[in-house]
């Protein structure tokens, strides 16, 4: 907790910078949503989804992804630490290595999460999602699952850096897979890509399957049961556990060759 507090105080020191980056965050998501809006203005149905529903799909992804960025952004820096040789300092300190990396002071502001919350509230209303007890309980769980899925994949990607120092290419490809492929219903993709997004890099559990449930859509392709999306926290936990074991394995290897 202390670590988060210090980070918050550091951020307040850079107010002008904050405004600039907030403008950047708004521009980034604004452009993505505007492009979706203009496209669906001409083509009202994307595999049976209208713009309102696509807006909700985007909002669900944005909530999980921005929470992940806020809390665990520094995991993406691990390959850089390994390249520069600064990773070793984490190994000599008497705390869990992953905990140390996560609490490295950085300049991550909660601006994206704030924007995500605003957009989510709007999109929920805009897409006529029924707000009941199930919704209120399920959304935080689905978001937590989304954070874990994001975390698991970024941790696994970072771990590969212990074997192959340069993983920029892989990171880049995984990142664009996540950012661009989660914008649309998974049902528009071919079978191989759908399976990849559902059961290998399970980004579909961050937004698509939960949105199918909340919006009462049907997916004949992959969703075996309509409430599949509610399994997001379980999928997140399993994938994170796997990624963490992989991380321990990589860490042991790194220490083994390093000393």
């Amino acid at each position, binding site marked *: 907790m202390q670590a988060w507090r210090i980070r918050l105080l550091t951020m307040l020191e850079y107010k*002008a*910078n904050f405004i*600039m*980056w907030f*403008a*950047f965050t708004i*521009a*980034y998501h604004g*452009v993505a949503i*505007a*492009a979706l809006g*203009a*496209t669906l*203005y*001409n*083509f*009202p*149905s*994307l*595999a*049976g989804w209208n713009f309102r529903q696509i807006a909700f799909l985007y909002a669900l992804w944005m909530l999980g992804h921005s929470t992940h960025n806020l809390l665990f952004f520094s995991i993406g820096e691990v390959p850089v630490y390994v390249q520069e040789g600064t990773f070793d300092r984490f190994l000599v300190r008497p705390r869990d290595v992953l905990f140390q990396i996560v609490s490295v002071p950085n300049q991550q502001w909660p601006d994206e999460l704030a924007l995500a919350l605003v957009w989510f509230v709007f999109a929920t209303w805009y897409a006529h999602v029924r707000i009941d007890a199930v919704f209120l309980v399920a959304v935080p769980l689905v978001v937590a699952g989304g954070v874990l899925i994001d975390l698991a994949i970024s941790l696994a990607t970072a771990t590969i850096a212990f074997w192959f120092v*340069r993983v*920029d*290419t892989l990171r*880049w*490809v995984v990142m*664009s*897979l996540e950012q*661009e*492929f989660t914008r*649309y219903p998974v049902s*528009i*993709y*071919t079978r191989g*890509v759908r399976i990849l997004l559902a059961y290998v890099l399970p980004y579909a559990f961050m937004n698509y399957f939960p949105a199918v449930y909340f919006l009462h859509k049907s997916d004949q392709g992959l969703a075996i049961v309509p409430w599949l999306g509610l399994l997001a926290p379980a999928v997140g936990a399993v994938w994170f556990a796997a990624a963490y074991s992989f991380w321990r394995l990589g860490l042991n290897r790194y220490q083994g060759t390093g000393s």
Partner: protein
Amino acid sequence: MGHSLRLDAYLQFASKAFQREATYRVEVFSEIGSLVLRVYLIRALWTALYAHNRAPANLPLHTIITYSTVALLLSLIFEVDGTRQLREKIRLGTIATDLLKPISIPGSLFSDGVGTTLLHAMSVIPSLLIALLLVHVDRPPDLAAGAAFAAAFALGYAVNFLLNFCMNCVAFWTLETFALQLVVRWLSDLLSGAIIPLTLFPGALQGVLLHLPFAAVYSTPLFVYLGLIHGQQIGRALLEQIAWLIVFSGLGAWIWSRGRDRVVVQGG
């Protein structure tokens, strides 16, 4: 910029940039990797959209897929920002020594950008081949359209360079320009037709966007390529590009001289 034009010096800048970029082969691979994903996405998205909706007039599926794919390939070239170094030079103060050299800095940045672009253009070739495996890309309707596309592309390249140059000159006044540049980059991607054709925007907005300088970079060359504008319309579009070229050359020269004076006066 009153230095005599020493072409060989600028050719050297271009070839140095080419060699420097060629050492970063990893980036070329990541470019091709993400390109494959994007071309796949273009095909999946537009195929799904055309399957359940009525197509807009003169924009059949193969046209929009060609548009998006060529726009993507163009972005590999246009995203090279040779003037980005300017920001670093100003931030670190090394601009002062560059000003003493008997060369034009904007000229050297342009040559450097061209060199970098040539390498990226070479990575466009394998990218194009891979793209052609995933989607069918139409050719320009005739030889004249092809020639007009080459002209529109060259003008678009020059306008893009000048827009970037003006943006980076802002660093003379405030050093934190990175976020600002990214904001402009995202917005111009949308407003230039790099993501979706400007004709997909609602009527009045579309009329405005088609005549902004951003459209001169992507939209005009792409419309010429696809034969969506022809005859006199092409002439008018090229003239509009030339007009923006003149406007931004003037603006660039003005900002540059103001900025340079600031450095010279501050430096004493």
